[in-house]
């Protein structure tokens, strides 16, 4: 294997590792936390106007329940509502914990953590969580997000022994099982792997059937489009990841920068469609991708011209794709 290839592999693995770590760290800065995702379909898309109460039951799979986090939509504005958070064991008459939270600190499509004193023996118990809006108005209210996961609980894992003990391994296994058990949690981590996937796919297929290589881009992009029907949340810097994946595709296949222009017709048509639908926010999103593709075209053209790179023209690309 060429040294340059190894370097690229290392860079892409580092990229994946760093961004996944940032994602996990943002989700929970403490490594000793186990996250449990809960089905909260009845809560999703519920708007919280004055007096509105929403509640959800869940079974705790682990001990030491300390945080309930719910993902909210703020409509990109600062909302001056106050939420009352309540939690109790379903079998108890009294609330275990009640607190008020100002919604001006909530961020769009992000989890808001409701913390409370740790419940040590929470494993197997059924809990009821309730949220009530005190002053949510039409202009200043929030909504429970549609993105998955909507409701998660966080449990502290207490290591009883030092590192490299059986307890540590048990914890690690639990942690891995905890992570892979949820597609919604796993999705962002896989997402950051897309540039690496693109590179691996290309290198694997180049030896078999060269023309198939042109289709390698479909796999990562298929992965990107599934977020919408599955209501998954796209992670931070996802645009950057897509740009890198696309750039790897362009450079490895030595295609003309014009392919970007062809691709830019897709967001352009999307914008037109969204304008007909009078959906300007989606049209704005399309404009972002139009901008990205045009920008890549310019950078790509500059690289090609500066290094006198030989590229495959647009007709050959399409001939290869159609054969």
């Amino acid at each position, binding site marked *: 294997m060429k040294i340059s290839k190894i370097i690229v592999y290392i860079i892409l693995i580092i990229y994946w590792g760093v961004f996944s770590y940032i994602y996990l760290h943002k989700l929970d800065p403490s490594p000793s936390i186990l996250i449990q995702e809960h089905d909260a379909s009845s809560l999703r898309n519920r708007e919280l106007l004055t007096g509105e109460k929403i509640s959800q039951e869940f079974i705790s799979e682990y001990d030491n329940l300390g945080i309930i986090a719910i993902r909210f939509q703020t409509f990109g504005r600062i909302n001056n509502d106050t939420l009352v958070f309540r939690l109790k064991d379903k079998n108890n008459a009294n609330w275990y914990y009640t607190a008020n939270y100002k919604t001006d600190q909530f961020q769009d499509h992000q989890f808001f953590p409701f913390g409370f004193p740790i419940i040590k023996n929470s494993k197997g118990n059924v809990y009821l969580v309730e949220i009530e809006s005190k002053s949510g108005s039409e202009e200043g209210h929030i909504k429970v997000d549609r993105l998955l996961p909507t409701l998660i609980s966080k449990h502290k894992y207490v290591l009883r022994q030092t590192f490299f003990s059986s307890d540590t391994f048990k914890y690690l296994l639990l942690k891995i099982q905890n992570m892979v058990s949820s597609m919604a949690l796993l999705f962002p981590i896989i997402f950051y792997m897309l540039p690496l996937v693109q590179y691996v796919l290309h290198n694997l297929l180049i030896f078999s059937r060269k023309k198939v290589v042109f289709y390698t881009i479909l796999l990562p992009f298929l992965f990107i489009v599934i977020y919408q029907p599955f209501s998954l949340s796209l992670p931070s810097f996802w645009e950057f990841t897509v740009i890198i994946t696309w750039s790897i595709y362009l450079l490895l296949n030595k295609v003309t920068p*014009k392919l970007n*222009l062809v691709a830019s*017709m897709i967001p352009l048509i999307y914008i037109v469609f969204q*304008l007909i639908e009078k959906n*300007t926010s989606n049209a704005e999103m399309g*404009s972002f991708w139009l*901008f990205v593709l045009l920008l890549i075209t310019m950078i790509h053209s500059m690289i090609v011209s*500066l290094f006198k790179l030989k590229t495959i023209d*647009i007709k050959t690309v399409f001939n290869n794709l159609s054969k």
Partner: protein
Amino acid sequence: MKTNLFSIILLFFLPILLIFFIFVLPLLQPGLIVGGDWTSPYTNKQLQVYADSVSSIWSNREIPTGTQTSHKNSYPFNLLAALFSDIGISGESFQKITLFLTIIGIYYFSYLFIFRLTKRKTASIVGALSYLFSPLIFNYINMGWNFVLLFMALSPLFALISINFFTSGKFKYAIFLGFIYTLGFAQSQSIVWFPIIYLFIFFSQFNKLEYAKQIKSFFMGLIVMFSAVIATNAPWIITSLKYMDLSFKSTSSFDVDRFSAVFSLLNSFRGWGSLYNQQYEIVFPSPLLLFSLFPIGLIIYRAIVNDKNDFQRYYNLSMCLILVSPIIYLLRTEIAYIPFSTIIRDGSRFLVITSLGLSTGIGLAFSQIKNKTLLCTLIICLLFSVYPFFSDGIYSTSKSDKNNGIFIGKDFRLRLLDLPMESYEDGLDIYSNQINLLLPTGGSTKTKTDTRFMGDFWEVYDTQALFSPYSTGIYTSDKSSPLVKNFVNNLIDSGKDIVLTKKMLGVYGVNNIFLRSKLESNIQISTSQKKIKSECISTMIQDSDWSITEICQIKDSYPQIYISVSPIYSTDSFINILKKQLDNLIVLVGCPKDLEQNGQICGPNKPYTLSKKEPSIKITPLSATKYKINITDISGKFILILNETFHQGWKIIDIDGKEQKFDHILINQLVNGWVINPNPGVTSAQYIIEFYPQEIYSTIFPFSATIFLLMALYVIYMVIRKNKIQK
């Protein structure tokens, strides 16, 4: 023969007719184009004031006691105004003539530029017309922002000369670029805009085989351009950097949001936007909305199917130019951290470059289409994309505008402000040697009765206050200095009592208040009519909303320079002190907390030991910013007050020219004071008070103006010589 005739009609008459009917004809009606924070002088006398302002960097534009003008980057136009005013042309004509020339320049220079790229006349005409009829031109004509339009005229010429420069490497083109750069700098953002265009032209002309020569040319051109701008603007740049005020160094992050209000990525690809004004977008008919994306779609499509290498470079150039404003928009928060970025951070104005990119792309696209039916179809699509120009969306020139308020939000349509000022300008002659303040004022005004300029219209910049030969106004914004803000707040506080207002303004040397009772402004002073009747004299002039209806004479207003030995020491607000001391002479030492925090010199913690007897003073004005003073009967320490806004640049020198190191303190929370501590036994003294930055400015200005004129002469010589050679 037929083709030739058709070409001549298309080349010459069609653009002329379009320019005449769409731009010139409506503007031939009387009145000044107004809108937003931009305007021009109206009468010949006002034009003279505008022309004369070139010589001074201390002006009463902001408040009657004056402030330093932080920038004078449009001084070539002051010089041009001097020429026009000397031959008796009015300010209104000056505005319209320069606007018409700018419009012709926008068309003609863009035609030359696109022709240089495509070598196709028809395509160049279509490209140039698309530039002339771009949404940005529409919105900036609405606002009367002539200097942005001037940049739009100069930028294609700049691009054309840049290409010539990179292909030939001749130094004369670098001088040409320097001249355009200097001229365009009247719009301060062009300090960044021109280099961006220059950089992209460089990339489009880059040839790897001649890279060393081209890189050398690139830097040589850049050095010449920056040297030209710095040399021709040195007087105000040096003084502003040496005596930097808040407005010059502020990087108000507030601008990031408010200037992006009408901007979006989607709009940038349509060339839509422009600061707050979205008149074009408002009047764009919904059924034609998709045509707004036609130009960008056409350019991308033609770039895909193009198979010529040269053209590909130019398509790339076009797209690089298009991407400028989206990039600035996306990076606006980061840009806000750059020092002095307050000059450039308005992402929406970067659409001037995007518009050039779109029109260049249209020219390129049309140059490669040979099928006439297709050409005609595409031209019709283009016409749909600029529909507002052909509807009645741009102008609202009728005095009885029945359509006012039919649009959602503010109505930005262009209006012509007719100010019947000539008739009573002469009547104000008797006040010409006094300090007079127009009220209401505050930068922008609205009328109470003229429907065209009421609340739903974008505010009118106060032309009278800015250019009047007899009176001043007040200009306040979020970038005003703490002293100006404090003065304005005190004035607002005094507002309900005209007696208090008169007293306050009298302390600062104002002799008369000129009231315009049919106007409203952002400085609201709602004095009761009863009190006005008793305190002011009616002029009986009511022929315009801008008429001066009452003149309130302020008796015993304080002189320009005076002496005090019995000041009041307080940190209370000036207006509160004034209320208590209404009948006494006020000389206040001390500042409220707001001024202290801003590093103003507020005086001592305990009172000065001053002379018991007030010395006599005789003042001889040497210029507007220089006074000779003779002081006699000195018997100890005293405070010398200069009724001009406090500024470190005001200095006291002795008769031999040596600067005197007296304590320079703030008096009356606004003006200059010096605690003069004479040597024992001295009973008389002579001093000169001068505004030192003005001395620097006046010394350097002739050299800078000469450099500018020499560059202009050289460029004219070059153009004439080139034309002769071509013949």
